[in-house]
């Protein structure tokens, strides 16, 4: 067990150390100005000296991202269930879902402020908009891929639509749903930060998006990198949590989760 743990963890850690080392070396030897590309050491020191501010900002962004993520999960799955229940519905509305996906969130964000007012609500909605489509698309794929013979079996024994949905289609679609949630997790963080650019609170409960803007304004590229790093960590955490959730749900039966 320990050997396997090391086996999965060592390669990425080693490559990370190598990349960071090369980065540090290159920046120093080529005398790259710090305001263009800071060395990892400067980023680390900026992160440490602003640790509280970054932690608070990460917490704020996390709240919005999580809220948006849960909204994406709930509405994404619900929308997919509705679309999956009727080919007509699917053909009528799925193209709009695709369209929503392609409209850039930076363009929608100002509208969100007008509708929801500034603050966590608008930011969460921004995170939701960015994350919902992968959940819909993947869930729909899962729901549509149910074996027709199993559908026949359910029909034969007089299953109601409800029973077919909850006892057959949704459990069958679980692996696809988890895939969709994995993607939505990282996207929620992006959506939250972009939302904060336009709609976040700029003082007090300022999120990572505000820190990014502020550090850019003040030419503090090292702090900018540090806040971007925190954002990635958030995305990673959400990704890991979704993975764990998927493992819990499917470990007994799905080949992708069995260790």
């Amino acid at each position, binding site marked *: 067990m320990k050997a396997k743990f090391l086996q999965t963890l060592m390669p990425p850690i080693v490559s990370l150390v190598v990349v960071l080392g090369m980065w540090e070396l290159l920046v120093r030897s080529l005398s790259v100005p710090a305001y263009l590309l800071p060395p990892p050491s400067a980023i680390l020191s900026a992160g440490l000296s602003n640790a509280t501010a970054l932690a608070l900002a990460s917490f704020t962004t996390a709240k919005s991202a999580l809220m948006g993520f849960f909204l994406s999960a709930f509405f994404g799955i619900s929308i997919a269930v509705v679309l999956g229940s009727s080919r007509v519905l699917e053909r009528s509305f799925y193209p709009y879902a695709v369209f929503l996906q392609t409209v850039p969130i930076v363009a929608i964000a100002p509208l969100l402020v007008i509708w929801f007012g500034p603050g966590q609500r608008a930011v969460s909605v921004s995170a939701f908009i960015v994350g919902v489509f992968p959940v819909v698309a993947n869930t729909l794929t899962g729901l549509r891929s149910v074996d027709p013979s199993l559908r026949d079996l359910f029909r034969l024994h*007089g299953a109601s639509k409800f029973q077919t949905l909850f006892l057959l289609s949704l459990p069958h679609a679980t692996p696809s749903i988890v895939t969709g949630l994995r993607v939505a997790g990282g996207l929620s963080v992006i959506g939250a930060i972009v939302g904060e650019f336009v709609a976040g609170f700029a003082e007090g409960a300022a999120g990572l998006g505000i820190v990014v803007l502020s550090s850019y304004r003040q030419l503090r590229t090292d702090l900018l990198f540090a806040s971007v790093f925190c954002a990635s960590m958030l995305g990673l955490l959400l990704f890991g949590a979704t993975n764990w959730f998927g493992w819990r749900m499917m470990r007994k039966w799905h080949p992708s989760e069995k260790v």
Partner: protein
Amino acid sequence: MSDFADSPELHLATTHAGVRVVIDHVVRVFPGSGLVLDDISLDVPSGAFVALLGPSGCGKSTLLRIIAGLDRVDRGKVCLEAPEAPPRIAYVFQDAHLLPWRSVLENVTLPLELLGTPKTERRANAREALAKVGLSDAEQRMPAELSGGMKMRVSLARALVTRPQILLLDEPFAALDEITRQKLDDELRRLWIEHPMTVLFVTHSNAEATYLAERCIVLSPRPAKLVLDMPIDLPRTRHASLRAHASFAQVLGSLYDALLKAGTS
């Protein structure tokens, strides 16, 4: 108690008994493929074990699905005459088609769960069905852990749990190895003798049809017509050793002859 006895869904059958299947000039056309079933007429008495033979793709599965109510007819009709309507139908597919996220026990309880049977009752019945197929020890295992033969047995148990009056099987053992297949053939016959029900068994193996059935129905290639309806003259109680017996070869031989005469290979 009397209220319960009246509602057919909740009140579990205490007996199988059979169903008479009358197929009356059934025609089925598929939009893409054209005529599939060409004027099929058949009368299966209650409790009979009938094998449905024919080349692959001739429409045997279609006919079975029509009898199960999973597909419609374009002309003619199918009638299931049972003492109490609606008749309880069970279907076994070529692939066991177990729900991978459910345990063996939970898979077998599925039909009863869909009917609304309370939990303790349906579990008890599921255990009974598993015992009948010899899988009592496996009830907590997951389908992914089972061999092909065991999965098929679970599928059989699931089919039996509602005490069906008619059991439809669509080449259920075709994907299994010879030994397992023969074992399951024996088990199926035993179950049929213990619990009288009408059995329609689709196969494309003449030997299997001869071993299992009392009567062989043969369909031609598409568009399927009924080309042969032959009784199998073998004893009711059959053992595996029967396959090596002269009488078996004889009956099998006469089946081949009849097939040749009917013009199908």
